[in-house]
């Protein structure tokens, strides 16, 4: 986030910040103005804001995301398990935290709801190439969430984070039971 060490930002920054608040209450007006050193922060804010607008307009089913109340660099997302997968009927909360050089670097994405999945570890870390070395600055929150949603139904069992889940994947009936047993929806 913007650092505290410089207050001599100009009015332009100030005006741009106000636009950000068109959405939900965001950090911009509470935080100190971005310093000249982090002018890039300005474009990150702008891009996140435009992603938020697009997400609200798109009405994608099964995925949603919204910034946390006081920090537009931290979002909470939800995805629901796709139909005809063992995850059907379950819903998962995720956290996305965006670096200062987003979208050149990917956000850190974690499951907040426990997810019994070959590519998700017990801490909610996700092993997904587009969130690591295959990241592209053209990806956005929407494509991330859609990718994770399809990862649920199509795990990569050859290099699992959760070996137990990977081993069980072959038996979809048992796997479904396990998902139901371990599923703890967040209120």
């Amino acid at each position, binding site marked *: 986030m913007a650092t505290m060490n410089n207050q001599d930002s100009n009015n332009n920054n100030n005006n741009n910040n*106000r*636009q950000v*608040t*068109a959405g939900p*209450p*965001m950090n911009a*007006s*509470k935080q100190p103005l971005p310093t*000249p*050193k982090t*002018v*890039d922060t300005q*474009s990150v804010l*702008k*891009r996140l*804001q*435009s*992603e938020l*607008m*697009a997400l*609200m*307009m798109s009405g994608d089913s099964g995925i949603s995301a919204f910034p946390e109340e006081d920090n537009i660099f931290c979002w909470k997302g939800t995805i629901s398990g796709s139909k005809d997968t063992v995850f059907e009927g379950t819903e998962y909360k995720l956290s996305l935290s965006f670096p200062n*050089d987003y*979208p*050149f*670097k990917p956000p850190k994405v974690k499951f907040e709801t426990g997810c019994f999945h070959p590519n998700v570890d017990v801490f909610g870390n996700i092993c997904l190439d587009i969130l690591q070395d295959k990241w*592209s*600055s*053209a990806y*956005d929150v929407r494509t991330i969430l859609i990718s994770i949603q399809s990862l649920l139904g199509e795990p990569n069992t050859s290099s699992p984070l959760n070996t137990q889940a990977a081993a069980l994947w072959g038996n979809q009936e048992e796997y479904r039971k396990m998902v139901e047993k371990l599923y703890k929806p967040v209120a």
Partner: protein
Amino acid sequence: MPAGFGEVPSRSPQRPSCSSDNNPNNGDAGNFECNICFDLAQDPIVTLCGHLFCWPCLYKWLHIHSHSQECPVCKALIEEEKLVPLYGRGKNSTDPRSKSVPGVEIPNRPAGQRPETAPPPDRNAFAQHGQHGFGLMGGFGPAMTASFGNFTLSFGGLIPSFFNVQMHAFTGHPMYGNGAAPAPAPAPAPGFSYGGHHAHGAPQQRAHQHETGFSAASPLLIIGLLFLWALIWN
């Protein structure tokens, strides 16, 4: 401002308008948004795969953050010398961000690669090219159209009709492709379907593309006329 949630009912109807202010996604401008910052492209640049970016955004992606030379959208190989800048009408804007990235010097946007100026569509072109053998073919079409519009010029159009027989011999020559057609020309086949020994092949067709409102039947007409005159003059 952190608007209170009590305002929500009154704010909701404003959403479409505020989104159009801040996010041109829904309008035509969506086609001109940078694929990296999602904003209207500044110092716009297009890859060979057709994807649009701000030059500073693409530069940062290629040189600072990515260790591959891939298009962020489609993963196509990006060769910097093949990038095409977009010059719209108006000011030659410089992206303010390009100056203010700490520790990063973003070079000027690559310039457009300008092909040669197109030959003027008048008789001079024919006169000049007429002395240079192969170049004749480029000027041939325009000379014909001039003769169509003005009978006094028809004499100029007559000469090519004699040369035309010679031109046939060139069509199989390697020089034909290199010298006469800098751009990929349409396949010669349709040209030959005009029939007779007056078929001209690709260069003829290309020339006609420059003439708007010049119907496909017209070349036949001219060719017919020229052919008649050629007979008379002989």
